[in-house]
């Protein structure tokens, strides 16, 4: 079986992934319990679609959280 390797831009940095599952990427970031939002190629990915979302090579992914600010 060939391992999938895709390259994406996550929050501005290029990374390589062995899985094309967005859910697995988020789990690997330890974000599951936090409030976050995801944008892929400038489109919001609603929470309800995250579990079944398939990433593609060269996707530009932004994952954001709330931080202190004025």
């Amino acid at each position, binding site marked *: 079986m060939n391992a999938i390797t895709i390259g994406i831009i996550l929050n501005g940095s290029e990374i390589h992934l062995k899985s094309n599952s967005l859910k697995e990427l988020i789990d690997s970031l330890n974000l599951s319990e936090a409030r976050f939002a995801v944008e892929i190629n400038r489109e919001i990915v609603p929470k309800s679609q995250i579990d079944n979302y398939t990433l593609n090579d060269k996707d530009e992914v932004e994952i954001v959280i*709330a931080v202190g600010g004025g």
Partner: protein
Amino acid sequence: MEKLVVGSREFSSRLLVGTGKYKDFQETQDAIVASGAEVVTVAIRRTNIGQNKGEPNLLDFLNPEEFIILPNTAGCYSVDDAVRTCNLARELLDGHNLVKLEVLGDEKTLFPNMTQTLEAAKILVEDNFEVMVYCTDDPILCKELDDIGCVSIMPLAAPIGSGLGITNPYNIEIILENSNKPVIVDAGVGTASDATIAMELGCDGVLMNTAIAEAKNPVLMASAMKKAIESGREAFLAGRMKKRLYASKSSPEDGAIK
């Protein structure tokens, strides 16, 4: 105190506070509780890659069910970035559509870029956001933002984080006179009396962060700000006496021993 109505929401406190620059999340929470504020601003930022499991998150300390979270677009210098940030914030907060729009023009002054702010405000209002807008204290531009449909006009009193106080009370007065929407002074307040001055002018509220977070004792300053806002509001509603050049006796003239 009577409620502050902003768009479709009602706030019981006229003090709105930021969550930046605190030592830690516990101090943030303690100061915000002491301030009595109901509306708290947050920034939206890229998450750290490789966050540790169970690492505390700001929203663990400020439950969105207890506070009204007001996401800002701080750090955005273009219409596009500001609109994207608002969309991410709306998703992050489960469809919550109240945002604080700020499109900055310059890193040194953090003054807003008003042409970009107007354009972003139009896009966001059309997309059903309720926009509270950080802006310059230019009465004409404030009126335009009001006409576009922003739910609150938030002129700066002085540059963000400067603590210089209400530098142009005359413009604030004109903005208040022209505005159909709540006017909230956003940025520039340094200490309690500054907040009171804003409220005495008739402002509907004050939004601040650094004045509390950078005080030596932020929790005590938060409490001072709560009182300052309430005092200023009551003084405004009470209507101050007229100033006169010479003295006017407070005690009766008759019956004084001679």
